[in-house]
């Protein structure tokens, strides 16, 4: 799958360059082709071997202990690993989920759990995390805690994150976010669907009603 994306990106790059070399490129539209060129036109990737929900006991935005397995048992749950000093993908992912969630019935909204686990716990204290999530959707759960615990939890979902560190060249702080939203079924509590960062509001709006029921989107 990933090879296909690379190939599509390469083809697109070639196509774009060809166009722009003759001064007729329409850059605003070109990114669509990458997605359309890839033959998986669904945002969701359904796993035939679901992930077990990570055994994460962390601290929520109220400063209280939060046991992910206990709190989200039997609930449709979306988990994402990111950080608040992230200008691009992290807020976009969470905002996409927030907007899509609003299209659900009130009853379905009440069932859904969206959990944002920070990959930058040193900067993302419970209150910082709470402030940030309030700007997106105050029902979203924000978790922080020991980095090694968070990293181990992410790893069980195939998500690799590195600790926040200083860039050697620029001296700037670099944090790392995951690139996937993992959906856990209310029926099995297994993580059975993945969304990459290309997933849009429309993709989530279309899929959430199925995920709420534990069905395949």
């Amino acid at each position, binding site marked *: 799958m*990933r090879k296909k994306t690379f190939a599509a990106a390469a083809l697109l790059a*070639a196509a774009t*360059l060809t166009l722009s*070399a*003759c001064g007729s490129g329409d850059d605003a539209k070109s990114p*669509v082709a990458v997605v359309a060129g890839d033959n998986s036109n669904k945002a969701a990737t359904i796993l035939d071997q679901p992930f077990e929900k990570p055994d994460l006991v962390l601290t929520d935005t109220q400063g209280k202990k939060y046991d992910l397995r206990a709190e989200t048992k039997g609930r449709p749950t979306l988990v994402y690993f990111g950080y608040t*000093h992230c200008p691009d993908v992290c807020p976009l992912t969470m905002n996409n989920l927030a907007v899509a969630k609003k299209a659900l019935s009130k009853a379905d909204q009440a069932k859904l759990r969206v959990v944002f686990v920070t990959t930058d716990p040193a900067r993302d204290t419970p209150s910082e995390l709470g402030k*940030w999530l309030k700007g997106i959707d105050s029902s979203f759960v924000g978790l922080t805690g020991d980095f090694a615990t968070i990293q181990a939890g992410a790893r069980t979902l195939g998500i690799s994150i590195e600790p926040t560190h200083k860039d050697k060249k*620029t001296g700037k702080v670099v944090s790392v976010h995951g690139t996937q939203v993992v959906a856990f079924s209310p029926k099995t509590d297994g993580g059975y669907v993945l969304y990459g960062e290309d997933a849009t*509001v429309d993709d989530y709006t279309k899929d959430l009603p199925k995920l709420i029921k534990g069905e395949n989107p």
Partner: protein
Amino acid sequence: MRRPALTVRRPALTVRRPALTGRRLALTGVAATGTALAGALVLVGCGGSAASGAELSVGASYMPQPVSADMAAGFLTITNKGGTKDELTSVTSDSAGDITMHETNGGAMEEVRSFEVPAHGQLVFKSGGNHLMFEKLKHRPEQGDTITLKLKFAESGPLTVEMPVKSATYNPSTGH
């Protein structure tokens, strides 16, 4: 026709991103395609400016409405119709205390001092890839606002960009 749901084996770590590879390929492509096209352009006659330096223009700019005034991202595309490459060296705005340029590398963003704008090519900032990072904004930009930016280049004169603030979930490929 209903497509069967895509089922795949559990993927290995997928933190490294196609976007980055795409960009690198794009740049590599410029060198290769550029050479090939230089010949083609003469034949087809749609060039004509090969030796007259970089000719830069900016399009597709937007800022998604940020969560707070602490941090925002901005995206744009710089097109160079000229036959000479140039380099984007700084981005400034009266609306933000600090604007830095970043490339995204496997889920980590890394600050870059300058970006090449290839001859007969484009420098693309887009979500998931290269981005401008705004910090210490005077106000939290809201949808409908415009942020005025000044782009400086190694060779060409500066360009002013009026960057519109779009919704937090704005997707340039669908336009909403």
